[in-house]
């Protein structure tokens, strides 16, 4: 049996319930494309969630959800590991347990501190905004150290798990900076990170999954107003 045939047999039925503007969903698409797995993409209207989404992710009611042979997997980092374990070629995570632990540690740090930090810096205002920017810059400093001397976070010529986790930086961060009026990805402060972002975004399968920039600008314009009015309502 040929390799392609064998792969297609193991694929089963793969669906991604997602939203094209969600960086968490794009991560999942990148992982599937890296593994050559074919999938059906079901676009969600997050203001009017489908029965399918609510059925497959009743706990969080969020995207992305991967549905493989009718079994759902939710939470983007959990999905990435599932994909890596189910389709074993073109590994996303390294073999060595300590290196795997490092990749997971950095993924958690990046999502909790860098991504959330950037998001706060994006929508907050005044003094809170300044504090959020400072905090985010501190977190980015750790990332800069991690990428120094390497082309990709994976440590070799092919992107891996942590590169995918950081993949929001070239486009999503750029849009957040524009809409939110702040700068985090400064090529002077973080030259290695900036170079990584350029290299990452050049990769064809990465580019293929990116949403159009103006759609993201609209999305973040909506988000910034939404978050600010929610914050005002609480006061």
């Amino acid at each position, binding site marked *: 049996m040929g390799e392609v045939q064998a792969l297609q047999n193991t694929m089963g039925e793969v669906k991604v319930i997602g939203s094209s503007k969600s960086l968490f969903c794009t991560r999942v698409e990148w992982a599937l494309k890296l593994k050559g797995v074919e999938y059906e993409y079901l676009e969600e209207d997050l203001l009017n969630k489908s029965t399918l989404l609510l059925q497959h992710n*009743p*706990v969080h009611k969020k995207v992305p959800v991967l549905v*493989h042979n009718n*079994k759902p*997997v*939710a*939470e983007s980092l*959990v*999905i990435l*590991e*599932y994909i890596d*374990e*189910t389709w074993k070629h073109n590994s996303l995570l390294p073999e060595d*347990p*300590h290196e*795997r*632990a490092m990749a*997971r*540690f950095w993924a*958690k*740090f990046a999502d909790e501190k860098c991504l959330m930090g950037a998001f706060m810096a994006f929508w907050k205002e005044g003094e809170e905004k300044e504090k959020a920017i400072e905090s985010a810059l501190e977190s980015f400093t*750790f990332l800069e150290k991690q990428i120094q001397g390497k082309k990709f976070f994976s440590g070799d010529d092919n992107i891996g798990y942590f590169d995918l986790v950081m993949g929001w930086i070239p486009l999503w961060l750029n849009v957040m900076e524009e809409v939110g009026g702040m700068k985090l990805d400064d090529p002077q402060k973080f030259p290695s990170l900036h170079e990584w972002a350029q290299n990452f975004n050049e990769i064809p399968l990465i580019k293929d999954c990116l949403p159009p920039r103006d759609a993201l600008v609209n999305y973040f314009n909506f988000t910034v107003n939404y978050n600010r009015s929610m914050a005002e309502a609480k006061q």
Partner: protein
Amino acid sequence: MDEMKYSMAEEIKVFRSWSSPFALRIIWALKLKGVEFDTIYEDLTNKSPLLLQYNPIHKKVPVLVHNGKVICESLVILEYIDETWKQNPLLPEDPHQKANARFWAKFGDDKVMQSIGGGVLLKEGKEQEEGFAASMEDLKYLEEEIRGKKFFGGETIGLADIALGWLAHYLDIFEEIVGLKLIDQEKFPSLAAWKQEFTNAPIIRENWPDRDKLVTKFAAMREANLGKGTPK
């Protein structure tokens, strides 16, 4: 010439505090696998240079040091332990079941700990009411997941049990401090049964921190957070 086989002595150190539920996870995992280790107790009000060197980013416990290799973040450490010592696995083989275990471990930390720890224990008045309502929602999901199972991991303790295990001991203490019942036997019968199973399981039952000390500690934490206590 005869080959002489050397076995390298494994050096395994766990940095913990006496009360941290996160560090307790690591103790449980290593003991469940029969792995011997050294314990270094940290006073978190006076962190050792070694801890700060090993965990410069978060400056927290637990930290695992295995033959000089440092791992931080309890859920990351648990996966490392499971991949390094393969006896008594914490995660199942099947990728979907594995994903499920990871999902619930994450749910515990992201949601349950926030609503109960952050919302109910550390707040009062309307904020506490909101925390209580949120925790009821969260516990409902756990109730559905555990129904029909002895442990979240099935017949044996798994990753999700270890991640959620603090509920089996610390929750009673929180309930006593705030005077509210969260895992009510009538509302959450399966979860209440799991609490019993887990708290009395071998290894687990021998490693709970002193209850009275925990009550004192968390009561003080609540007071401090409500602004009534003297700040440290």
